[in-house]
């Protein structure tokens, strides 16, 4: 287990403090390495074997020829340093290898050694290195200190996205038997059981029944949570944490109430009982595709007309930006709706058309702010205009609560900070990293709590919700301070007058 650590002291968000470098501060931080039982089912070698160096370089060459992003990003960084103070993990840990360019250079130095004339002739001049065991260990540790949040890519003058480089590095490590346990074990569960949490179908049915009873006891309205219903209009694909954890499950209740109030028939699926797609975190196209195909198969089998995704950040990036590529074309669905849709697009549309009515007094006493999830903010969109991913969640929250305030402008929308737990890092052995990486968000939150009386922070991502539930207490907040957006809708929605 990780050694004890100090929770970072929060500064003033206006000052935008940049820490002095502490080289090596996080050199020891690393997630558990995947064992053969987690590697082999995904088609990766079980352990690191002799000759891995050559294999890794071979795989690097292959990725360079398959991904323009990687090839271009390797060549064009001018080391200007514009990104150096933008990563939440650097701001929270002060480790220079957590500066985006510092992280990317761990990879770039190897690229230069094996793929560029300058690195072959004069490695010292251009900072090129052989791929040794020490370099591999450094890769493993620091490419698992990147949540692939893309904040660096907003500020880099050429849009260099360190997330792409982390994904490539993780894919190379998987291909030589140095995978990460947390991600690969979860992907195994998706293939075997159907979701990240490994909830088997009977447990799922049980949970949903229990929730239906709770809702009815609570509201007197028989709101249903249907699953595997043939011929439903909508297939809802949602992160499995929505079936299980708080505040996620309160969001799921919110979706159910919206569908009920709107009178739209919908269903969950035991086959696609997971919106998340950890194939993205490990940078593996084929895994990402395989996981996505479950959604296609479920939609075909159930004969639905629309697909809607629940609240989850990276899931929405894969769904919005990649699903059409990975599992399309979607010509068998109703062409009047985008495929897929986000539940917030669906709810917002209903609110605008007065298809559902909300009563803000359901959230009396709450002052809300919102945490834009990185993958939603910088890797996807909602609605039909750029930036809809910012306006739509805010519109839904504002319609549901009496008071809403935004955090500091440098920490929201496209400039949002990651929660600190994204990108396949939401595992206990990385707790120190997660707490420190959440500090920039916590600093901005603290300001609105103190100045505006904010009581709750809404999140629209399963990972953000789980991460905040865990780290908020380190900063003196109640763990229940983080709420689902649809939890707010759930509290405000007026049921039962739609017929």
């Amino acid at each position, binding site marked *: 287990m990780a050694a004890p650590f100090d929770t970072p002291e929060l500064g003033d968000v206006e000052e935008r403090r940049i820490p002095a470098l502490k080289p090596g501060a996080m050199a020891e931080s690393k997630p558990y390495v995947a064992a053969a039982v987690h590697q082999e089912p995904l088609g990766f070698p079980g352990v690191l074997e002799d000759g891995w160096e050559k294999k890794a370089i071979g795989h690097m060459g292959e990725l360079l020829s*398959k991904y323009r992003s990687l090839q271009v990003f390797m060549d*064009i960084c001018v080391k200007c340093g514009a990104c150096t103070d933008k990563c939440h993990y650097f701001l929270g840990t002060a480790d220079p290898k957590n500066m985006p360019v510092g992280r990317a250079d761990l990879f770039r130095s190897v690229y230069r050694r094996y793929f560029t004339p300058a690195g072959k002739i004069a490695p010292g*001049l251009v900072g090129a290195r052989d791929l040794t065991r020490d370099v591999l260990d450094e890769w493993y540790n620091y490419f698992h200190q990147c949540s692939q949040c893309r904040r660096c*890519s907003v500020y880099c*003058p050429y849009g260099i996205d360190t997330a792409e480089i982390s994904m490539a590095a993780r894919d190379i490590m998987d291909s030589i038997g140095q995978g990460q346990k947390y991600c690969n074990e979860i992907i195994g569960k998706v293939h075997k059981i159907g979701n990240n949490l490994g909830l088997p179908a009977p447990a799922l049915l049980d949970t949903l029944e229990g929730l239906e009873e709770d809702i009815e006891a609570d509201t007197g309205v028989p709101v249903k949570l249907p699953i595997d219903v043939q011929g439903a209009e909508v297939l809802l694909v949602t992160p499995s944490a929505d079936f299980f954890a708080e505040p996620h499950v309160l969001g799921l209740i919110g979706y159910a109430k919206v569908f009920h109030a709107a009178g739209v028939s919908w269903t969950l699926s035991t086959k696609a009982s997971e919106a998340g797609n950890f194939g993205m975190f490990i940078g593996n196209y084929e895994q990402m595709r395989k996981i996505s195909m479950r959604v296609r198969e479920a939609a075909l089998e159930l004969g639905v007309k629309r697909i809607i995704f629940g609240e989850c950040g990276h899931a929405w990036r894969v769904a919005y930006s*990649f699903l059409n590529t990975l599992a399309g074309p979607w010509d068998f669905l109703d062409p009047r709706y985008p495929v897929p849709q986000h539940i917030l697009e669906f709810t917002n549309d209903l609110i605008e058309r007065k298809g559902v009515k909300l009563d803000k007094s359901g959230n009396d006493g709450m002052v809300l702010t919102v945490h834009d999830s990185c993958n939603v903010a910088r890797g996807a969109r909602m609605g039909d205009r750029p930036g809809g991913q910012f306006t739509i969640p805010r519109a839904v929250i504002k319609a549901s609560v009496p008071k809403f305030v935004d955090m500091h402008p440098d920490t929201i929308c496209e400039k949002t900070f990651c929660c600190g737990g994204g990108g396949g890092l939401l595992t206990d052995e990385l707790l120190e990293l997660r707490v420190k990486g959440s500090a920039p968000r916590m600093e901005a939150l603290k300001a609105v709590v103190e100045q505006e009386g904010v009581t709750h922070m809404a999140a629209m991502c399963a990972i953000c919700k789980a991460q905040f539930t865990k780290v908020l207490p380190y900063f003196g907040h109640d763990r229940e301070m983080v709420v689902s957006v649809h939890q707010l809708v759930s509290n405000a929605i007026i049921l039962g007058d739609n017929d």
Partner: protein
Amino acid sequence: MTIFFAILFTVATLVLVVGLGLKIARYARTPAPLKIPTTPAPLTAPGVAFRLAREAVVFESLFKANKPLWIFAALFHFGLAVVLLRHVRYFETQVGPVIALIQPFAVPAGLAMLAGLLALLARRFVIERVRYITGPSDILMLVLLLGITVTGMMMTNHVHTDVVAVKAFFTGLLAFELRPLPADPLLIVHLLLVAALMIVFPFSKLLHAPGLFFSPTRNQTDTPRERRHLCDWAAKLEEKVN
């Protein structure tokens, strides 16, 4: 002397053109399998062209990131742009109106480059984070550009060279004819350094200039739901599995 420079510039030009051409061809050929524009992103091709133009001309992202750096970058690059345009007169027999118009700006443009480069160099020693990521090649690149700038400015302002002869030499080269190059030390140093810059260009971070336009986070439209984006290798994968 003349022959040496004739050969040097022929070689340097070949390296620059072929090297850069190969790199650009590689960037263009390598597929981008997934839609990864950094959002919010434009929805249309003209929108993307406008985004790229803003990045190339006013360094939009850099402006968001770091104002002092933006100022230094603008000083250097705008100075460079004017200087390079002014230099067109050494290669064109007929000088166009734009080139003629900016001829008077030698001194301000040179000074802007000089100031920008000195500030960029100073950053590399003064700011701890930038010092950490700076390698010898980053310093050398700035020193090389400073060398070119200083020798160029000295010629413009103090020790004039025979500009007409320089022009004759280069227009001659373009016509595959050897005409004498003035043997002024400053000019010789200026041209040696310029040749070095041309030769390292395709192998160095100077690739940022063409690379920006190939960066998928900047040059893609945000239309994944509207249009299916599928690259060749991914399409082959589909045939195999299905």
